[in-house]
């Protein structure tokens, strides 16, 4: 895309005098005024006011269809708007004066921060930090109520596991899967089918322990993933996004309409997990804590497994595909097969999570909505695509906030915030809050016109680059 070539998006600001000069205060004041009341500064004011109004609308009261502008009036033409205008003003000061403050802030930092850092030795989070986090995770449930621990399983844990799987698709292979929850549904319904004669109207002749369903669901989801991915991935990578979107919707439609799945009523009475092995008899029942620890163990294992995958030839080949698909092919990397592999691995993790979920509680088709898929995408993006720890942190933070704010923000409104978070992250921090070093480097290099950072083909408006 040479039309806007490699100019970084920093707003153009007149060079500012070094703040340490004599007479600094007055000069600084003049510079500040100039920055604020320049054309660019006033534009920024406009943007900030718009942001303030949007926030007012987001946090305002709910409206009614009978009175289309009612909500707008109550949110904006009301005293509460003052708060948001103040927020807008503060934001404006921060943005417009940032160029003045930057020299102060960056004085202690190394000067050259080009797109390329010279040494690429892979460094992983130190073992100590990981252990500390693990210990925190282990003792956490002791400090929380039962309701909170239940959420730590259903909301945080399951979604962390889902995000780890989707991270293989988005973070490792550089593709987008928007129907990810469909595989979760496949896992859940498979569990109901194999473990109980009554949960849904279709059932297997013998009822199995849910533990035996893990491999079945794992394989089924992977097969579904391959069937869906194979025809699509051969074409442009972005088609995968819309095909999976459609697939997600179809699975929900079938779950809702089919007689086999009990339709909208959903599945009741899937047996809980239990172990009967070598004299050990243990059953998971209603207490959420044992589920929590089981899930924690699974998440840790999955993280270790995917870490090894990432550092293996498979992970390197994925990186090669993201950075330059044509060069990867020419270097002997079977790109189509590896993309399918990533897609299938992601799908099977989702199916696996579905078994866990189904064996814990009642479910109906509503759980497998499009929004659930989008939530997983949001978690991966927010946490940091390509970083295993990042996506888990993403789930903890976003879902934790959702729980913390459950009385203040209605559940349905959450997705307004999630949507905003996704856009803001894409604009300001596409690598996420806990970035993967490799991913971050790729994104920054791609923005400077070196290589790519996904496997969707060339960037918009530069068709010729892909050849």
């Amino acid at each position: 895309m040479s039309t806007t070539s490699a100019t970084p998006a920093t707003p153009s600001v007149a060079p500012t005098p070094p703040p340490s000069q004599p007479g600094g205060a007055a000069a600084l004041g003049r510079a500040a005024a100039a920055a604020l009341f320049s054309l660019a500064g006033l534009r920024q004011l406009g943007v900030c006011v718009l942001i303030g109004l949007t926030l007012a609308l987001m946090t305002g009261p709910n409206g009614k269809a009978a009175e289309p502008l009612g909500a707008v009036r109550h949110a904006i033409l009301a005293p509460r708007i003052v708060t948001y205008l103040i927020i807008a003003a503060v934001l404006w000061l921060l943005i417009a004066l940032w160029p003045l403050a930057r020299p102060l802030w960056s004085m202690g930092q190394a000067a050259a921060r080009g797109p390329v850092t010279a040494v690429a030795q892979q460094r992983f989070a130190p073992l100590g930090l990981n252990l500390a986090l693990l210990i925190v995770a282990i003792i956490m449930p002791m400090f929380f109520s039962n309701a909170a621990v239940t959420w730590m399983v259903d909301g945080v844990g399951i979604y962390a596991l889902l995000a780890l799987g989707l991270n293989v698709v988005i973070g490792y292979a550089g593709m987008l899967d928007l129907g990810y929850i469909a595989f979760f549904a496949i896992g859940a319904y498979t569990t109901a089918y194999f473990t109980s004669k009554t949960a849904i109207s279709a059932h297997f002749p013998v009822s199995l322990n849910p533990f035996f369903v893990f491999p079945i669901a794992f394989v089924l989801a992977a097969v579904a993933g391959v069937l869906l991915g194979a025809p699509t991935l051969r074409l442009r990578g972005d088609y995968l996004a819309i095909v999976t979107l459609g697939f997600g919707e179809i699975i929900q439609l079938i779950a809702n309409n089919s007689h086999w799945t009990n339709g909208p009523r959903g599945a009741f009475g899937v047996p809980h997990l239990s172990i009967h092995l070598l004299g050990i008899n243990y059953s998971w029942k209603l207490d959420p804590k044992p589920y929590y620890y089981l899930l924690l163990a699974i998440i840790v294992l999955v993280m270790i497994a995917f870490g090894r995958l990432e550092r293996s030839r498979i992970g390197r080949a994925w990186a090669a595909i993201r950075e330059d698909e044509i060069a990867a092919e020419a270097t002997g990397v079977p790109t189509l097969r590896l993309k399918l592999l990533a897609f299938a691995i992601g799908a099977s993790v989702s199916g696996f999570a579905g078994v866990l979920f189904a064996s814990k509680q009642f479910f109906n088709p509503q759980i497998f909505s499009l929004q659930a898929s989008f939530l997983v995408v949001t978690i991966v993006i927010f946490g940091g695509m390509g970083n295993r720890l990042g996506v888990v942190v993403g789930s903890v933070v976003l879902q934790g906030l959702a729980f913390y704010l459950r009385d203040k923000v209605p559940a349905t409104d959450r997705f307004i915030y999630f949507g905003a978070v996704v856009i803001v992250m894409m604009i300001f921090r596409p690598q996420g809050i806990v970035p993967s070093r490799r991913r971050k480097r790729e994104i920054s290099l791609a923005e400077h016109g070196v290589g790519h950072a996904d496997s969707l083909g060339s960037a918009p408006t530069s068709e010729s680059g892909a050849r």
Partner: protein
Amino acid sequence: MGFVHQFWQLTIDGLMSGSLYAVIALGYTLVYGVLQLINFAHSEVFMLGAFGGLFAARELVNNFSDTPSGMASVGIVLVGLAVGALCGAAAAFTLERVAYRPLRKRNAPRLAYLISAIGASLFAVNMAGKLWERQNVTMELPFTNGTVFHVFSAEVNTKTLVIILVAAVMLVLLDTLVARTRLGQSIRAVAQDADTATLMGVNVERVILLTFIIGGLLAGAGGFLYAMTFSASNNMGFIPGVKAFTAAVLGGIGNVRGAMLGGIVLGLVESYGGYVFQASYKDVIAFLVLVLILMVRPTGLLGERLGRAA
């Protein structure tokens, strides 16, 4: 009641939904043409246009004590279309400015655009749900819906006729715009090669913005037609969106006439298919068509180039 007996009725129904798909599909195809980008949030442009048009037209209809007729009906439909189109255009403009332009300025990878579009879509759907409730909103028709004429055994009622006529007019207008005007020429130039177009003095940023706006106008007006006949709701955009995208791929994404043809063909296939299979699985048909076309002829019926289309 065999298929043959129903054939004409199914054809009329298919044409009606097909022409709506075509109108929405143009937005996908135009944006894909200039940016090689699936604008995932286009379905929300459609939804916002639907709400805008519906609210405006409903306000007017409510002023009448009984169903309007004659010029009043025409006027109300036109106002609904205009407001819907403007709301759609405004939504598309905002979308381009907020979700896409910052990324383009930074030369972001393509994945970022898709994700940003998902964010915008989530935001819009749920914001609409917050502002106008999460349920179907309907309006009284601004005209008496009777049978206008028969095509063999099938009845063509006013509603169907209005939709097909309005859609046809919009399609013709757009085709003329792309084929004959300076703007259309610029759009085709950018679609073919943005770099060269820049060298030739085309303001690419402006063309991109206008392309979004044109797509928004069409989708918004289409949204009003949809809302008037069925209903509007915050998540109404999703299924017509996927179908319109399917139509665009079916015709050859990036190809304007392809999108029109694709919409009509998809509408018909769906209509016949819905009769043959169960009606509740009608939405599956479009998806199967999408997967099938990707497997068999991924460049679509008419091929992919916007430049070649007109």
